[in-house]
């Protein structure tokens, strides 16, 4: 049984009472029972094997949290089938909960009025974590996430970053088979984010933890995930490797050339002439630098050869588009389903 998560045609439709604006309309709505339906997620089909690490991305309201909640058994789907670790999450919730860890970046789980250390001990008892596992997870968390200084401070007195780190540690103390991380780095500074990512990678290395990560920070994904699920308005837009995603949606590459000295007279014109047939844009605006924006159709080898032939090159690098840029463009272009 190597499947961690299995979804087939998974969907969730909310039913909401209609709300009206204004005092009198509100008073009228008071006596009405009108409701409206909202499809948060529909026809989600995918499978995650054990040990995979999957990034779940999408705009606000794309259905990421709803999906995670269905996978963890917090919500009951209105359509389709879902299995997590071979269990129906909402049916076998308590049994499943023993083997999963969940971080809701927006809703810390530690008891507000007691120090994190006490919460950790409580969780150890709750999940009946074996001593040897606990010794590793606890030590790893304390060291990697640098919790030592504030373990004995009541949680309410911690900063957001400190609280978040404790929360992440708490969710992974029992070395869950799957870790669901819903925006675990929200509101953290760059250094702390780095620590969080390292901790995830280490837990994965040690326990083969399957990771499902939703985030708005794509650097989280680049650092920890090989696979990407992209949601758009509740539907699956992309499912595949992260690099495949970059190749498929990246519309071009950029060649950055550093020259040995100032441009020789006529070199620029000769290059432009030779590359006239290619789809590209040459940018000489920075002295001793050349930036070439290529499209999908451009032949990179030909362009590189021409550059080397006509210019004295000190360095040449080729860059694919950053994940960030690709996703931004994707969101902007995605059309609402007809």
């Amino acid at each position, binding site marked *: 049984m190597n499947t961690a998560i299995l979804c087939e045609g998974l969907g*969730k439709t*909310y*039913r909401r009472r209609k709300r009206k604006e204004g005092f009198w309309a509100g008073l009228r709505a008071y006596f009405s029972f009108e409701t409206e339906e909202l499809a*948060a997620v529909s026809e989600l089909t995918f499978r995650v094997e054990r040990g995979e690490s999957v990034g779940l991305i999408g705009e606000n309201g794309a259905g990421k*949290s*709803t999906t995670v*909640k269905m996978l*963890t*058994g*917090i*919500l*009951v789907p*209105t359509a389709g089938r879902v299995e997590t670790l071979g269990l129906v999450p*909402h049916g076998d*919730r*308590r*049994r499943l*909960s*023993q083997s*999963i860890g*969940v971080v*809701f970046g*927006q*809703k810390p*789980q530690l*008891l*507000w*009025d*007691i120090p994190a250390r*006490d*919460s950790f*001990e*409580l969780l150890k*008892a*709750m*999940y*009946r974590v074996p001593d040897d596992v606990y010794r590793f997870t606890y030590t790893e968390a304390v060291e990697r996430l640098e919790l030592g200084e504030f373990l004995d401070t*009541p949680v309410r007195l911690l900063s957001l970053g400190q609280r978040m780190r404790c929360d992440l540690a708490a969710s992974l103390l029992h070395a869950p088979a799957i870790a669901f991380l819903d925006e675990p780095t929200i509101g953290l500074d760059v250094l702390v984010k780095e620590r969080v990512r390292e901790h995830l990678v280490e837990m994965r290395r040690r326990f083969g933890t399957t990771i499902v990560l939703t985030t708005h920070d794509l650097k989280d994904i680049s650092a920890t995930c090989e696979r990407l699920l992209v949601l758009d308005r509740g539907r699956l837009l992309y499912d595949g490797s992260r690099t495949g995603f970059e190749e498929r949606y990246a519309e071009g590459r950029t060649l950055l050339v550093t020259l040995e000295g100032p441009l020789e007279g006529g070199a620029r014109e000769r290059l432009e002439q030779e590359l006239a047939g290619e789809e590209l844009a040459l940018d000489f605006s920075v002295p001793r630098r050349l930036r070439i924006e290529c499209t999908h159709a451009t032949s990179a080898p030909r362009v590189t050869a021409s550059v080397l032939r006509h210019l004295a090159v000190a360095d040449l690098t080729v860059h694919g588009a950053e994940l960030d840029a690709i996703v931004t463009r994707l969101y902007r272009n995605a059309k609402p389903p007809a």
Partner: protein
Amino acid sequence: MRFYFLFYRTAVKAIAEYRVDFAVGVVTAVAMQLAALGFYWVVFSRAPGLGGWKASEVLLLFGLTALVLGLSELLSNGIWWLPYYVQDGQLDRLLIYPVDSLTFVLMSRPELHALGNLATGAVTLGIAWSTLGVPTWMLLLVPLWVLCGSVVYTGALVVTGSLMLRVVGPWASHLFTMHQLLNTSRYPLSMYPGWLRALVMYVVPFGAAIFVPADFLRGHGSLLGAVLWPIAGALASGVVAKLTWNAALRGYQSTGS
């Protein structure tokens, strides 16, 4: 089991962090009980008794009710926080823990001002006890009655809280209805109209756990009845509460966040 013990201890520790609040809470609890006794003062300055009960006999009811309230607040007060848990999404969190969710919620927020209620209850019960000359050995039954009464009361709160899990908004006002209903057991059932008597005997059986024992203490009814009625009431309330809670969670899971 070890977990629940540890959890309760931690929860108490968390509350005890706030010493001023704790002190204010105890003082308040005593003040509230005194306020209720103030109304007794008004009542018995105008009438010799109520529904066939003498003042000191009514005091038995008062003492038992205060003890029941106190024990419930001490052990299972978390139900009052349910509306907040729903509102800020903490209930989601509960669903991913491998523990019994109802026990967890109930134990999550002990109310230490319960000590004030327990103290007032014990004192008034003691005064009534000695005034009436009730045999001392019957004190052995008091823990049973208080425990059963607390289960009935907590059960009633759980049922109310579960039925209105999603519809009430952030206020626990619906639970206050039950709290007020508990206050009916501060007075003899015999002064109530039939429907109300039936309600608090059979539907929300405060009467079974408080009125029946008090009636026994003043020399009416049998020992067997004074033991069996409270137990039956507690069992019924506990089972109904658990079932309603489970149903409510299923409903919660399907309505979404």
